[in-house]
Structures are given as C-alpha cells and as structure tokens.
C-alpha cells in the first residue's frame, strides 16, 4: 500500500498545480486538434508561460462523440470530480473517480481522468501508469489514445525523461486521426 499522507498544499504548490493544469489544457487542446503538426504541439515547457493566477485546471473531459455513454451514476460522479478538480481539490477528484471506476472499471475515460489528477498532484509515475491503463481499454478510440500519449509525454518530461517523452509524443502523433 502506498499511503498519501494528507497535508495542506502550500500556496506555491497550488500555483504550480494550477500552472501545470493550464499547460496541460493547452497541451490537450492541441492534442485534440484534427491534424497536429510538430510545430503546433507545445513542447514540454510546463511552468513558463502560464501566469500564476491561471484559470481553473482542466476538468475531467466531458463526454465526447466517440465515447460510449456512461451510466448515470458514473456521469454524476465524474461531474462532481470535475467540480472538485476545478476547485483545485485533485485528491478529492481522484477519490470520486475511483468511486466511478468501481461502477465502470473498463471506462477508459475515467482512467484517463484519474491519470490527470495524479499528474496534478505531482505523481508523474502513477499518471503515466494510469494513462497506459486507459489506453489498454481505449480500443480504437483514437482521440482518447492520443490524449493518453500526450499525458504520458508530459508525465515523462516531468520526471526528466526527455527521450521517453519524445517517444510518447510520437506515439500520439502517429495515431491515425481518422480512426
């Protein structure tokens, strides 16, 4: 077991999280663009251009056309998770997402959203693993798989693994957008 001892995040840590989340938002938005070229994909500069008073962090993704419809229970929990995440309570969001995953353990979007919360609480290792797990369940949902690879790229770059990050980014780009 890997306990998380609860502690009050410092203001600086919160700012960093918010900044990171903003960068991710940018990153993901780029990832969702139809045909991202290397030039438009943001590099792994996560903490530079984002002002500390950033917008609320990226909420767990809203349902997308290619996503199978979640049950009302899962929808309710992910909405609550989005609210918690927006308020900066990423651990609370993770808790809600874990509840949702007990209802739908094969919901790849939930695994992705959980990976996102781990990235936002500075657990890059788990962020990557959870994104891999999301990918394992994503089937042929190209858009979700791309988001997962971009998240993995981000997680690796945060752990100082530039080469691994680059590989993940290439994986993201190689996913056929048409599928």
């Amino acid at each position, binding site marked *: 077991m890997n306990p998380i*001892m609860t502690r009050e995040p410092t203001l600086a840590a919160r700012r960093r999280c918010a900044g990171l989340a903003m960068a991710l938002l940018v990153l993901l938005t780029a990832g969702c663009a139809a045909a991202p070229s290397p030039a438009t994909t943001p590099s792994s500069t996560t903490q530079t251009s984002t002002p500390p008073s950033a917008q609320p962090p990226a909420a767990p993704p809203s349902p997308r056309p290619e996503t199978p419809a979640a049950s009302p229970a899962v*929808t309710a929990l992910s909405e609550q998770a989005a609210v918690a995440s927006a308020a900066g309570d990423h651990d609370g969001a993770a808790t809600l997402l874990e509840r949702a995953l007990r209802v739908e*353990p094969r919901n790849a979007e939930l695994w992705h959203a959980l990976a996102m919360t781990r990235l936002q609480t500075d657990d890059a290792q788990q962020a990557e693993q959870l994104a891999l797990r999301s990918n*394992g*369940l994503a089937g042929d949902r190209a858009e979700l798989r791309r988001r997962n690879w971009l998240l993995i790229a981000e997680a690796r770059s945060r752990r100082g693994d530039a080469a691994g990050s680059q590989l993940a980014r290439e994986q993201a780009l190689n996913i056929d957008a048409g599928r």
Partner: protein
Amino acid sequence: MTSNAKPPRPQRRRWLLIAVPAACVIVAIVALASWLWSLDGIVRAQFEGKRWAVPATVYARPLELYPGLAIDSVGLAEELRALEYRQVPLAPEPGTWHRQGALHLLHTRSFPHWEGAERSARIRVRIDDGRITQLTGADDGAPLALARTDAARIGHIYPGHTEDRLLLRLDEMPPLLLAALIAVEDSEFLSHGGVSFASTVRAARANLRARRVVQGGSTITQQLVKNFYLTDERTLRRKVREAAMAILLERRYSKNEIIETYINEVYLAQDLERAIHGFGLASQHLFGAPLDQLPVEHQALLVAIINGPSFYNPRRHPERALARRNLVLQIMADELLLDAAAAARARAQPLGVIPAAEARRRQHPAFMDLVQRDLARDYSPDDLQGEGLRIFTTLAPSAQAAAEDAITAALAAQAPGLQAAAVLADPSSGEVLAVVGGREPGFAGFNRALDARRPVGSLIKPAVYLAALQQPARFTLGTLLDDAPLRLEERSGRVWEPRNFDRLFRGDVLLVDALAHSLNVPTIRLGMDIGLDAVAQAVAGLGAPQPAQLFPSYLIGSGELVPIEVAQMYQTLATGGFHTPLRAVRAVTLQDGTRVTRYPLSTTQAFDPAAVHLVTAGLVSAMSEGTGRAAYARLPADLLVAGKTGTTDDTRDSWFAGYGENLLGVVWVGRDDNTSTGLTGATGALPIWVETMRRLRPRPLMLDPPGDIETVWIDAVTGQRSAEGCEGARLLPYARGHAPETRSECGSLSENGTRRSLSEWLQGIFR
C-alpha cells in the same frame, strides 16, 4: 515521671510499654498506608487502562446503489444486516427498511464518510433478476443516479489486547436498562461509598436461606474491581483487598465514570474462546441488534445474566434464563420502572436470542486480521491507541457472507478435519472484498487465507505460459507442445519422470490445450525451454514472492504461496497485466473526520497486454472445456470467466483461482496437518468458488482484445493456418503478426474468412 526515687529500669520498661505498641501502630499505619497506596496505584492503572483506551473503529465499505448494480435481495439483506437495519413497514426512520416483492424501501442513516458526509435518505430500490432496475427517491419518486448507505461497523482495534468491545458512552446507554441494572445489582449504588454493608448482610441472609449463592452482595463498584483480576479466586484476603480497592475507586472517580466503565467491562457471555464483555457487544452477540434498539424484555435479560453468565446462559439454559429475566422484570415493575401492563407484556415474550452461529456471522476476524496487518505497515500499535481513529475498509458484507456460506455449506458435508480459506477481491481496484480464514468463519484462529503457506500446484501454470507467450515469435496459443514421456535428471542424480494427472500422454498438443487441461508434462517442457528464471520473473511480475531455489518441479507448483498471494497473482492477470496491490483499507480519519491517511489506487503495468490477454483466453478455455468445466453446471452459460484448478501430491491441497470482469476469487481446501483430502481442485475448491460466484453474479469477462491481437482459424492437429469450415479448424487469438503462415491443405483453398471476430471465437469455445 520526674521522680528520681523510682529506679530507672521500670521507667525504661514503662517507656517501652508505650513505645512498642506505638511503634507497632505506626508500623501498621505505614504498612496500611503503603498497602493502600499500592492498591490505589493498581486501581488507577487498571481503571485508566480500561477507561481511556479509545479503540479505533473499523467500517465496512458503504454500499453504493445505482441502476445496473448486480445485487439480489439476499445480498441486499446481508448488507442491511451488517448495517443493523431493522425491517419496519414504510421504513419510517433512519436505519430501517422494508421489502415488498421486488421493491425495497431503504431509509439510510446520515453518515460521515471519510471523503464527505452523506445525508439520510429514503430510497426505493427495485431489484429484478439480480440487478437494480430502478432507483428512486421514496418521497418524490425522482430517479436517482446513485445512492450510498452508511458504513457498517465491523469491529474495533484495541491496542494491547485482542478482546473485542463495543464501547458505549453513558449517554448511549438506554436509561431503562441503566435503571434496571442499578435496581437489580446495586440499589444503593448512588449513595454508597464503594461497599455496602446493608446489601452484604442482605445477600448473605438470602444465600443462607437458599443454601446457595442467589444474590451477590457486591456493589457495582466491587464487581468492577473484581474484573481487574484475571482469576476468580475466592479468599477472604481477596475480598478485603477488593473492598479496599472499591472504596479507593469511589474516592478517585465519579459515579458516572464508574458505571460507564462497568457497562463496558462487565462479563456477560462466552463465545467459544471469546469472552463477551460489555452491554454493547453482548447485545450484538445475543440479539444481533444494537443496544438502543432492544425491547424491554431483551434489556431485562442482559441485566438478568450478569449474576451468572454461565449459569443463566440463555442459549444453554433457556428456562433458567427466562425465570431470572422475569424476576428482573418483576423488580423493574416493583421499582416502578415499568408499569404492570408493560411488565406483563414483556414477561409473555420469548427470550429472542439468536443462534450463536448467526451471531458469529457478524465477526470477520480473518478480514480484520488483514486490516491490522495493512495498518501495521504505517502505524505503530501506539498510534492506533487513544486516538479513536476511524478506519474505512474495503470489506463488502454481501461478498463476505457469500464466501462464508459457500465454505460452511461445502465443508458441512465433509470430514471434520477439512479446512478452507478464501479471498475475494475486485481485480480492477485491488480492493479486498472478503477474507475467510477457516471453516468456522466467525472464529478467530489460524488465518489460513493469510498464513497457510501451501504448494500451489497448477495455479502456477499461468505464469509459465505467460513467460512463454511474452515471446510471441516463439510461442503462441497454437504452438504444438510435446506431451511424450519425459525424464529429468537432477544435479543430485535423482531422476524425475513427471506424469500428467490422468497418467496419459497425448503426443503433440496445442499450447492452449496444455494450459486448459492442465497437462504437467508439456508445461514442464515449456518451462525448461524458456528457463526457470523467466518463469520466476513472471511470478514476481504478477506480484507473488519468488522461491529461494528453483527446481523443475516449481513449474507444476511445488512452490508455496498463501491464498492472498495467489489472489495478487491472479489480480494482475485479471487486469490485463496491470499489477494493482491488494488493499483492505481505503482511508483512516481521526474521530472528528480529519483525514490522516488515504490509500489510493495505484497500478503498474507489469506485462505486455497481448501476452496476458492470451493467458486469460487460455484460462477461459480451461473453464469452458478444460479442468474447470464443471463450473458451468451451476453458472449461467453467458457468464464468461477465466480460472485455474490446482491439486497437489496425494490431493493434499485443492485450489481454485478465477475471475470474471469485476470479481476475483481464490479458494483453498486442505488439512492443517497436511494430509490427503481426497479432493482435486475441481472437486474441492471449485464448487466453493462457483457457489460464491453464483451468488455474487460478477459481470462476465469482456475479453476485448488489445489492439495487437487478431484471431485466426488454425488446424487443431497441426497448428497450421486453416479456415472456417475446415475439418478440425479452431479459432484462436494471436499476437498480431505471429499467427502461423503455413497453411493446411483445406486452409490454403479458402484464403478468405480466416480472420474472425472475437465473438465468433467465443462462440466457438461454447459450441
């Protein structure tokens, strides 16, 4: 005194005459004082020790209700029983429920969950065919997406001692019970100073008249002091000591403190080796209900048995207990605690005691053991003390009940020495849902689920095949393995000639069949081919410990594991290769809800998903046509599960491990003295696993292949590429690009239609 005429000697004697007794008195006073002082020390230490050890409270996971949840009325009743809900028409207050056919009306209690409070709600749950089909608010009829019950209290953790208690504060004690207690046991409690001579005399007289002890002369304070000792010695010296200690106790502590300790300390019953102390636990033990829900006659019975918990044991001596209970009701009426009509009504009631076996159902010692061990990694015993921590676990009461019932029922028909253990888990999250440590699940003893280290037999084989299938260029499900006699010479010169369970040799067999039919000889060949180290690495990757030394016999399960380690291995298989540590605790908070620790889900990819997918496909074949096929005599045909039997030499151990989409179970059956059971994995452990699954109805495996899996028709004899419709053609999943190229004669004629969807493959195995 001043006269010099008197001789000095007598004077000295006179002085001595005063001095000696004075010294004696002083010595006696000092001795008495130091005796009292030492007694006072004992009193304080004992009393504080009893009183201030606020235990950690342990909770089951709350039940999350949502449309689609697989739960039947029996399972729901188990959950509500653990929550101590009462069945009352209309479910008028929190903690009550009512069932009318498929409709279940629940009135949940508000509850401070670790991640936030849940308000009390009245909800209507419709269950059809083992599934929630409708969930609505009972008052407005509005559909609900999700509802959550409170969490059942499943036990306490006391530092220092293992006795269980359900501690009650004085204000939680029903006033009538308190009044009855004082009226019957110590009517002068509020006025005496620890001992009461009047009542001692009265008791002595009554006992003399009856020529046996019918009345205890001890005050409540004295009875409490008596509890400080472990033995029940009856000497005058002890009586005097106790009386002195009772007086000291009264001087130090208030009446409220004394009676509060008494109600939690008093010995009331014995359950096998477990002493039942305190009204809270006794209420649960005798009536299966919390104290504040007891009717008058049950309260009276609790007071009645204080006088002689063994003599008035209501299960063993119901007539005596009933007579004494009615005497207590009489005293209550005489003291005007009850009006005559109510007393008469109560007297007409039966004892209402539940059977001991049912009371033990509420105990989950094996699961609690796991919780304590998990917590021990992060907390010292002292951390758990004095804090009143709240521990939120993953126990699912309905799963625990299903596993316990399956084991109890299966072993009831077997010889008495046979034992069993089971672990149930949610593979995706790694949450442990149930742990059964022996054939008497309520009895805390040797916890076989955690401590019975036994050879695992064929349960190890999936690791051998996983190690092989990780090399897709060399091994596929369609690879032919050699099942011909094998002779192995060990370094010591000893010769080992392994055999299959049925002692037959089949020549060439497909790899998938060798796994599904659990053939020893081709498995050993395969393992020797890829290397023992590769197999041991796969075992480690799956999350089980590796053996210190590796022998070829390890390949067919000479290595020993405890059931929960097996569960961890199969957890990793069940999630496509993502190792997720099994957890029994979700979070720990302080009494006021402040979160101390959370144990989040964590996961690590340990294997290539394609290789694990192929192993699961093999284990699905084992269930549909291999060693586990007996399961489908009892399981619905559409419940796709993967599983593996395990049997060790001389049928000493009977194992089964298997999983559906959201439920994993490991069952072991064997004997503590490690002698033969006469049971194989399929005849001993499998029926218990099947019965558990049948009750809990897991979701069937989806078996969506990862992106790099394709299914192709092959020839079952040659392993060559074949085609649909060809004789002996079989559909098997392959890692993409590794399906056989060489075509059989029939296969080369029909180029098209060789690739089939997975559902067709599934239909194939259920043909």
